[in-house]
């Protein structure tokens, strides 16, 4: 049954489809093409074969960036899968004022990563809140170099990412919790199950699918980290450029006279593979889990 002329749907779809082709599909193809050139940010460039990929193999900064990405992902995953779920359970019950708390918990998500990174920069400063408090309490004798030590800087950026992500994943869990059967909770409570056992045996299995989805989202966004590390390291990527992420390297090569869009594209292809692999692994785990 058709109640419209043949071209009507196309008229409606064409704008979105055009954007998809021009700004998604074509750039994906063009990234591959560019990676075989030495294109410059201002224009020009020619075919250089596999040179960019050979450079990749010997790029020490890339090795650090990949290591940082893996650490980022491994640390973020457990915290951001579990803590937001606990938060969602906490704000689920509609107590008076709960909307205020939900909105407040979501605020770090709404704020720009640049803004929150600048705020944390001040808190983690040698003379900032954290060092000041810790010294006052006598936990440390001198300020901890949160922003200038290679590993502490990475850890600071990771904590920032976790803090900023709490509200985002909380909301996704909150939507999922709405679908967990209330009858199950009531039945379990009648059988004498306490809140903790109900959480483990009803809530967690109930949001299992969402949990997998969220862990995919966390892994991918941890591998794509940019603003937090960029701002906290003052745009320099830490001591000796060892606190770069892959995206920070891409950005560095995208600008200036030293820029090389060809090499940046080769790095983009690396980024594509490192983000797609965990996505596929987790999606596969999900499928196997669903069959079992």
């Amino acid at each position: 049954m058709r109640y419209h002329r043949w071209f009507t749907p196309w008229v409606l779809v064409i704008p979105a489809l055009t954007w998809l082709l021009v700004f998604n599909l074509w750039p994906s193809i063009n990234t591959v093409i560019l990676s075989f050139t030495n294109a410059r940010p201002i224009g020009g460039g020619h075919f250089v074969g596999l040179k960019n990929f050979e450079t990749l193999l010997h790029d020490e900064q890339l090795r650090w960036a990949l290591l940082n990405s893996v650490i980022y992902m491994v640390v973020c995953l457990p915290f951001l899968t579990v803590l937001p779920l606990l938060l969602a359970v906490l704000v689920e019950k509609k107590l008076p004022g709960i909307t205020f708390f939900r909105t407040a918990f979501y605020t770090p998500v709404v704020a720009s990563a640049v803004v929150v990174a600048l705020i944390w920069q001040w808190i983690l400063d040698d003379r900032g809140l954290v060092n000041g408090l810790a010294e006052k309490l006598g936990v440390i004798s001198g300020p901890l170099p949160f922003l200038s030590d290679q590993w502490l800087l990475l850890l600071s950026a990771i904590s920032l990412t976790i803090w900023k992500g709490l509200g985002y994943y909380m909301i996704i869990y909150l939507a999922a919790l709405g679908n967990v059967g209330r009858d199950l909770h009531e039945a379990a409570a009648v059988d004498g199950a306490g809140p903790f056992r109900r959480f483990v045996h009803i809530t967690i299995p109930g949001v299992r699918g969402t949990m997998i989805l969220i862990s995919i989202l966390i892994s991918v966004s941890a591998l794509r980290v940019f603003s937090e590390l960029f701002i906290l390291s003052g745009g320099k990527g830490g001591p000796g450029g060892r606190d770069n992420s892959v995206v920070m390297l891409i950005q560095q090569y995208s600008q200036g006279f030293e820029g090389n869009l060809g090499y940046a594209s080769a790095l983009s292809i690396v980024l594509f593979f490192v983000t797609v692999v965990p996505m596929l692994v987790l999606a596969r785990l999900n499928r196997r889990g669903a069959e079992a």
Partner: protein
Amino acid sequence: MSVVTDPARPAVVKSPGTPPAKRRRGSFGFNTVSPREKVVRYVLLVFVLLITIGPFLWQLSTSLKGSGEDIYTRIPRLLPAQPTFGHYKEVTDTIPVWDYARNSLVVAVLVVGGNVIGSSLAGFALSRLQFRGRRLVLGLFLATLVLPGEVTIISQYVTVREFGLANTLFGVALPGMIGALNVLLMYNAFRSLPIEVDQAAVVDGANAWQRFLYIGLPSVRGTISVVAIFAFIGAWDDFLWPLIVLTDPNKYTLTVGLQYLSGTFSNNPRLIAAGTMIAFIPIVIVFATLQRFFFKGVEEGAVKG
């Protein structure tokens, strides 16, 4: 899939003893919360509140502390002893923060407009109209979700440069003006509307455009507001893309301009704090005003995708 929520959203009236006629979705427990549980919950809520909001308050406080005040004391003081708005004036005098804010606003408005119009048109066609190639188009939109935006950011820049839009605000806004995810969100929202409504409208002689305007759109207002809010926040907060596209300091958006704050005023955290607050406060106001629609959209299932 999605449960239809009470459109009127009646206020919850707690009447002890009598259970509410219809229990609200999302509350798993029982009709009463024991006083002890209530206390525990509020204590935890306030604790988390301190963690999430504390840093912002600390920054606000720093921005208001007088120049003569010691901001490095071992015992941190939240309330400024000599409150002043002077640092806000000093920041805006040194750095064209208002121009940056205007640039951010221009980009955000373009992105919101493009996404609301483009994705609702496409979402409607894909879910309510039968046509050849529909599945293929839908598949294309789905496929791009797998691709992280940063992977194509370099060649996207090349495309924008070819259009002669490098170093322009329009060039910053353009690629994000119709997001694939938003098209799918709208597709999902339109799909939950029963097809019989459309058929009835057809019998009444409504054409596709009229069905879109008078039947489709009014029923997906929740999702549209989620799309609009996220598009606004995304455009306002975006950093990497404007950093790549813009080279001219006059055209900087707030986020790009802000990163120079820390370099320029590294010896005075009060000024950096004032600058970040200028970027932060507008987005908080926007979100706090619209959060009602946002959380309603979440309940309608807009976030699940």
